[in-house]
């Protein structure tokens, strides 16, 4: 039986030819998993295909378009670029497909973007601007590099050297200082010494997400080397996108396994859960609100660790050696919920679409910059769900989600308060 050599490199779209050509239009990528289907309302989980109803905006359409791209049947046009980039790559399609099939939908979508960049058609102009900002100032906003640590207040203790290194990320460093400050204070409250990067640069999320892998790889190398030089054993993040970059994308970019990283990557939600169990985190101050939690994609269905793989595909499409598919089962689903539920006074109510079925806020992975209407409509759609369950507060664990929701709330005059997980936890701690 003839076999085909194949690997998981997104630099070559033809690696995903089999996956793309086996999409059966079951739309598991689009609908909430049927066991959890809540009825006719809130029944979808694809922000891209909710924003634009044509099949081409759903993964099932994109797999056909990707196949045509590999076969050289389509030229890059503004519509094709929109189909490829108007998508937060939230992973809902990937876990939906892997409910029944073993197709690498998420990686296929990434590979289409890498091809767009290679062919000189992508990324979108807004992404190029971000890339320029990162090159010039090491942050996505183009803000002064020297201002990166301005978020630090006098009451925060940062160690010179510690096992835990808090990688703050561009957003918390520049636009959402409250998240960085709350995270640092939680670490202080739990008596966990932490240090910062001697010279923190962007994690490269946007670059990786839009297909600029060479640039993202350089940042990955640089950041990993710098952490190694500090001797930190744990890299802690309060940003979901940053967490995914460190845990999944850096190993992927460098063709190593997550387990090969010389440090552990943890998100604040994970850290807080573990501190709660160990007794160092004591949320004793009541927070009397009815609140709900939004699963940020990058710490949930996109968070399974990475393991490089290459092999052969043969009879009936089986691969050898055995490939352990990433199905989004190792996301941080329970940890944030454990912590939130432990806060006195909190009336926790689940979203209708939760965990791997959550509807993405629509901001991540280059979407908000290039397609603000998609980001805005997705956030508003999700806020309808918050309204439906009667929550006063919407908590997420990513500054991108927080900002996108907050902006949608402002535009709609909605009365929901949007908070980051770090702010909620801090509010529950006695001074």
């Amino acid at each position, binding site marked *: 039986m003839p076999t085909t050599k194949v690997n998981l490199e997104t630099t070559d779209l033809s690696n995903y030819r089999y996956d793309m*050509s*086996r*999409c*059966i*239009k*079951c*739309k*598991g990528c689009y*609908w909430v*998993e*049927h*066991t*959890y*289907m*809540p*009825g*006719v309302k809130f*029944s979808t989980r694809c922000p891209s295909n909710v924003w634009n*109803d*044509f*099949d*081409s*905006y*759903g993964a*099932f*359409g*994109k797999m*056909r*378009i990707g*196949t*045509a791209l590999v076969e050289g*049947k*389509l030229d890059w*046009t503004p*519509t*094709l670029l929109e*189909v490829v980039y108007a998508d937060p790559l939230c992973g809902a399609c990937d*876990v*939906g497909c*892997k*409910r*029944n*099939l*073993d197709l690498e939908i998420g990686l296929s979508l990434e590979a289409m973007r890498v091809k767009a960049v290679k062919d000189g058609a992508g990324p979108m102009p807004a992404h190029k601007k971000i890339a320029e900002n990162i090159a010039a100032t090491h942050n996505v906003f183009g803000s002064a590099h020297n201002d990166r640590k301005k978020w630090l207040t006098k009451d925060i203790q940062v160690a010179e050297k510690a096992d835990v290194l808090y990688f703050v990320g561009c957003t918390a460093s520049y636009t959402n200082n409250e998240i960085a400050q709350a995270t640092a204070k939680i670490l202080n409250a739990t008596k966990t010494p932490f240090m910062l990067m001697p010279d923190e640069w962007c994690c490269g999320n946007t670059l990786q997400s839009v297909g600029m892998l060479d640039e993202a790889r350089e940042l990955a190398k640089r950041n990993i080397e710098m952490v190694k030089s500090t001797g930190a054993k744990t890299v802690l993040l309060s940003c979901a996108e940053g967490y995914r970059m460190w845990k999944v994308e850096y190993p992927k970019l460098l063709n190593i396994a997550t387990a090969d990283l010389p440090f552990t990557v943890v998100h604040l939600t994970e850290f807080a859960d573990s501190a709660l169990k160990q007794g160092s985190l004591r949320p004793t101050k009541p927070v009397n609100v009815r609140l709900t939690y939004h699963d940020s994609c990058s710490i949930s269905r996109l968070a399974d660790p990475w393991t490089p793989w290459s092999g052969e595909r043969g*009879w*009936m*499409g*089986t*691969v*050898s050696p*055995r*490939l352990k*598919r990433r*199905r*989004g*089962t190792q996301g941080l*689903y329970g940890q944030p919920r454990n912590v939130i539920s432990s806060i006195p006074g909190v009336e926790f109510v689940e979203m209708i679409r939760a*965990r*791997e*079925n959550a509807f993405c806020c629509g901001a991540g992975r280059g979407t908000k910059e290039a397609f603000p209407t998609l980001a805005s409509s997705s956030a508003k759609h999700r806020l309808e769900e918050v309204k439906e369950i009667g929550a006063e507060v919407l908590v997420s664990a990513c500054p991108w989600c927080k900002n996108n929701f907050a902006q949608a709330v402002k535009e709609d005059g909605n009365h929901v308060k949007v908070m980051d997980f770090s702010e909620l936890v801090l509010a529950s701690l006695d001074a």
Partner: protein
Amino acid sequence: MAIVKEAYKALEDVVGAAYLSDDPVICEGYRSGPAGYEAGLGYERVMTKIPGAVVMPKTTEEVQKIVKICNRYCVPYVPYSTGFYGPRSHCHMENELLVDLKRLNDFEFDEKHWYAVVGSGVVYSQFQEECLRRGGYVVIGGGGAQASVIANLIGDGWSPLSHRIGLPHRRILGTEMVLPDGEILRMGSLAVGDDWFWGDGIGPDLRGLLRGYTGLRGCLGIVTKMAVKVLPFQPERLQPKGISPNTALALPEKRVKWINYIMPSKETQVKAMYEIGKAEIAGAVTKVPLFWRAIAKAECKEEFWDIWLKETPETIANFHIVRVLLIGFTSEEQLEYDENVLNDIMMELGGQPRPTKPSDESWIKNADSAGMWLMCGSYVSVDYVIETLKQATEHGPVYAELKKKYTPPLMPDHGDPGWFQSFELGYQGYSEFLIYWDQDEDTTGVDHFYLETSKMNINHRFYTSLIGPHQPMYLTGPKYGPNYHEWMLKIKNEFDPLWTCHPPVPFAHDEFVERAPWMHELKTWETPKEFPYPQWVKERLAAEAATFRAGLKSEAKVKK
């Protein structure tokens, strides 16, 4: 612009520019293949085309206007709800308009009379959840929880739950349909008022015309709304649990319970199904193909093969499972009573209960049809039959024997004779024969097997549902009828004189056999010199057939 400019402009005026596109990228997303139900086979490669344009109406009125425009400008069109039903629900002609119905997603539940009016874009799991939360239920068709309720009900519409709930035409109530010329047809009680509550209307029951046995595959208009009967279930919630892919509904054991029994022989398996039906117990009674169990156990495609290749023709031949779903519709005591009756039946027949999980992975709310593609990547059901339970045991082995000749390219299934189950409390038996292959292989054998099953049915005088548009009409029509193909033609001409609605269905399989040279050796039946299409369809199909032949020639040259 791919379709007539004037028609495009008129369509744009109906739906607005945002819901109409002839952009090649948008149209490419509506390609039938390369994978999916029946995809990768000759029929899909030869007969399907990328649409010339896609339109997404929101209302019945918009659908009417679109259809009238198509008639005015001779634009062929095909209704499309989810696109899951493979090549037969996709465009068959160049420059065809695909009418994507997903935005027709209205849903209204009549709490008093227990039916719901659904639009073409509503899928089964949505509908079922709306029912379950009210203590009711419907059948989620074998097509899957993601199938359009309307599309499935006018084509198939059954599942193991049909043991009690019954066949689909009994549950189709008032129905609204845009005929191929754009006129509205209101069926059932809707024909005489605005009430959807009843399926029968004045005059002949047009549900037969609408769906026949397995539907007309989109060539006789567009159903835009349908009232579907909801049946009482039981009041307790079935709680979803787990993280995908390991999710299930936790069952309230005193009200809902699956039990698997291993029977000593095929005869006792069938007898048990009869007896359960006779006792009027259970919500579902079914035999499960052994490879489905392997799919359920396997964590991945490769593990499936590890498990499955350990089986042998002997283990398959000696595997006689009866899977029974008990439902305490009225009370816990009722379930207890049903279970006692079931145990009596099984004790008498030697059925041994096996430990069964207190959960439902498939059939009540989720129907995992997509899992059928795990093993090989390609799948189709070549036949499904509603006859008697006993018939399934005769038909299955003959079918399995024929399959041997075509394995490979078909998956080595060790002679599995298919799936069968009780319908309508055992008054009817349902069997379905499923085949799997890898579409990257030479699929000529699969194309041949598909057609040979039709000849096998004719030769053995087996009844089959996959007649009509599924097989060459001129092969099956004279044999099952003796002239039903002529009636199909009359109906088509009466309702769609211009043949704008999904041409050349219902004669598309005939057309395929004519076009595909590898099918010619199987053609042992008579066909007219020219198929009876209107002139414009004839001309366009002739041109497309010529293009196809030219393509084959140039492919052959390249190979040389």
